[in-house]
Every structure is written in structure tokens, then in C-alpha cells.
């Protein structure tokens, strides 16, 4: 029997001002990055409520990456500083609960960094593929 090839589902939250434009640039430059990455455009990386990430995992995402402007370059001055604190706390908690740490990431990608965007996504997807399907957050409270 032929094994069906495993295709991960990756959710990328990209801020409108930097990372989404960075993704655009990656496309314009014909840079390859996996089609499994589903980009969700948000006005600012701090728009990403930690619940969005949990929600994505629960609905079957295998990895969630948040991309925003570099600290100091936020379109709204300070949004990504808040993202940084929130996500540090959340990721540490997910790690504490035993969720594989490679499934979550925050990366700062500016509008000029199309190459970085593609490289980041390639790297991230590769790591998630090596982990396989996300079971833990999908079924954390399962009855045994």
C-alpha cells in the first residue's frame, strides 16, 4: 500500500506592514517556499491573540508562526514589543505542558526581507514535517 505523503498545515500570522509585504516580495522574486504555509494577514503582530494560536492548533494546524516587523520598526510604534512578551509567556507555557517547541515560532521579517521570509518558512516547515502531525494540542484533555 502506498503511504500518502504527509503534508503539514502551517499557519503563518503576518503583519500587514512588514511580513505580509515580505511574503509578497518573496513571491515577486520567485523564491520557493512550501505551499502548506497558509498566511493570515493581521494588522499588527500584536493583533494575534494567544487564543488564535491555540485555536489553530486545535483545528489541526501542525505549526504556527507569527511574523511581524522588527522590534522598533512597528507601524504602530510598540505593537510587536507586546507580541514579544505575550508569545514568550505562551511558548514557555506550551513547552511546560509538553507541546513540542518546534511547532511555534516568532520571526521578525521586514518588507525588504523576501529572502528571509522564504528561508524562514522552508526551515520552519522542514522542522514541523520532521515532527509529524500535531496530536498533543488537538487532544490535550482527551479521556483515556
Amino acid at each position: 500500500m502506498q503511504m500518502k505523503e504527509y503534508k503539514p498545515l502551517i499557519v503563518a500570522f503576518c503583519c500587514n506592514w512588514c511580513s505580509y509585504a515580505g511574503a509578497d516580495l518573496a513571491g515577486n522574486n520567485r523564491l520557493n517556499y512550501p505551499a502548506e504555509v497558509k498566511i493570515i494577514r493581521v494588522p499588527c503582530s500584536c493583533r494575534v491573540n494567544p487564543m488564535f494560536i491555540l485555536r489553530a492548533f486545535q483545528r489541526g494546524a501542525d505549526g504556527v508562526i507569527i511574523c511581524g516587523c522588527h522590534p522598533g520598526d512597528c507601524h504602530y510604534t510598540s505593537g510587536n514589543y507586546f507580541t514579544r512578551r505575550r508569545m514568550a509567556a505562551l511558548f514557555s507555557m506550551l513547552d511546560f505542558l509538553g507541546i513540542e517547541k518546534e511547532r511555534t515560532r516568532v520571526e521578525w521579517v521586514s518588507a525588504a526581507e523576501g529572502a528571509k521570509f522564504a528561508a524562514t518558512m522552508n526551515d520552519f516547515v522542514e522542522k514541523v514535517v520532521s515532527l509529524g502531525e500535531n496530536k498533543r494540542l488537538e487532544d490535550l484533555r482527551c479521556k483515556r
Partner: protein
Amino acid sequence: MQKITKEMLIDKATELLNNGTVSLVLGWKKGEYDYDVTPGVFESVEELKKDFVFGDFSAANLSKYLVKKTEKLEGKILVFLKPCDTYSFNQLLTEHRFDREKVYAVGVQCDGMVDIEKVKKIAGDGILSVDCNGEDIVVKTLYNDDMTIAKADVLAERCANCKSKKHVAYDELLGESGEVIDSNRFDEVEKLEKMTADERFAFWQNELSKCIRCNACRDACPACTCEKCVFNNPNSGVENKSPANSFEEKLFHIIRAYHVAGRCTDCGECSRVCPQNIPLHLLNRKFIKDINEFYGEYQAGAEVGSRAPLVDYTLNDLEPGEVFDRGDENA
């Protein structure tokens, strides 16, 4: 150190009711047994004499009830606060959840509260009464002879790891106020951190799968005072009791811990009220420990008006990816 008795509290409440300082008293109410003490509101001296109790089972943190009780109150309400309750009191003031002018807070010296589950493990079922005489507690049961247990052995988890005997807010003090204690409260968290991810996951799956979603942790938590809670489902008819969807059901505990992160004073009510004895305080302590390590020591409620770490930032905070590197060093 003198022992604080319920008579002293009743006398104080009577005095304040009689001279018109307060019109309501928020305290601890007698239940069917010595150990099922609940929070209660008393309107008169007669009610106080009938039902008011204070002792080793007056563990409930009363500060949360001020939010609802002061809403339409004319005049003042008297509230008794143990040291750890005063932190919640301050935190609620910081969040402008009630009017300080409407509250007369009496700080009560705390000698640690007893966990009835621990007593039951030692003394067995059929407990008739539990009396404390200083260092020991005497348990009378239906089936066994009277039993004397060292109080230190049956202290509630949060009292065994007490973080502070200091009252950070009060109008008047009964007994003595102690000092902030350098406790071992993060030991359990560190133990978990040292495990592998698989072990941690197995531990939490085992613990959280016990949850019956009774929402007791949320209902007792002094940080959970939102009028509209994300866990309420307005379409269900039984608003409090049902999750809006399977997502909330599964990830309830992560979300709740995150919602109170940076605001949790570590009062331990969540674990105390949990009927399934899930160690929920560990989730909160993990956040407190992380915040202390990442952004500097912070104790929610230590002072009124302090800025919670998660709504604040500095230019050189650590990157989210670095939290894992740190974890590897510890391992």
C-alpha cells in the same frame, strides 16, 4: 503570638455594625461540618452569632466577592482578609473592580489553613469534628478513635508553601502581620521543567483529563471577575456550565491560566476548590516564575497601581525563541 478566635472577629464585626461604620459583613459561614466553611454575607449581629466561623477551614479568599457586593451598596462592607487575600484585594483595586471607599478591610492574622483532603487521607472517612489546639489538630471520626495530627502535616498546599504573612492592605489589623516569606513554591514547577517534554505531556494529560469542567476554579478565582467570560456560552441556557465549543473544553486550562497571567497573586484558590484535585496552581506558578525570570521579580497585588508585566514592555526583552534555549540549560 496570640491565637485569633472567631469570637474576636465576631466582636469586631459587632462593634462596627453597631456603631454604623459598616452595614454588611463579609466573612466565613458555617457549613454542615467543621470543614465545609463557605464565604457568607452577614447583615446583623444575630446572623453573625449564629453562623460566623473562623478557624482552620476559613480558607476562602473573600476579596473577590467585594466586586459584586459593593456594586449597589450604600455605605460600607466589612471584609476579613488573610495575608494572601490582601494581595488579591490590591490586585482588584488596581483593576478598578470595586470602590475602596465602600470597604472596611480588617486584616486577620493567619496561621495556615488545613486541607481536609489531607486529613481524610490520614483519619479516614466519617469525620465528625476537627479542632485545633495550636500545633496539633484533633480529629473525631465516626469509625475510629480520636486522632491527633500535627497541623504541619495537613496544611493546605498554598499554606505549606506560604509566600507571605504580610498584610499588604487593611484598615485595621487583628493579631500580627508577618513578613514576606522566601518560600519554596516554585519547587514543583522546577521539577516539572526538568522532565522531558513527553513526561510533562503525560503528566498534564493525566491531570487535566480529570477535569469535569465544573468551572469552580474560575468561579473562585479573584482574578476572574469579568462580567462576560469567554467560557460562558450565551446560547446554552445554562450559561455558566457549558463550554461554547470543544476547543474551550480542551484548552480551558491553558486559556484560563493565560488570562490571569501577570495578574494572578498565587492565592491558590483554584487548586483548593477543584473537586478533582488538579494542581492548577502549577500552571499559574509557571507563569509567575517565567515572568520573574524574564522581566524581573513581580508580585501581583503587592502594591496598588503596579503595571502588570504582560501589558508592559522594554526595548530589550528576550525573544520568544529564547525561552526554549533557557529551558535546555536547565535540563
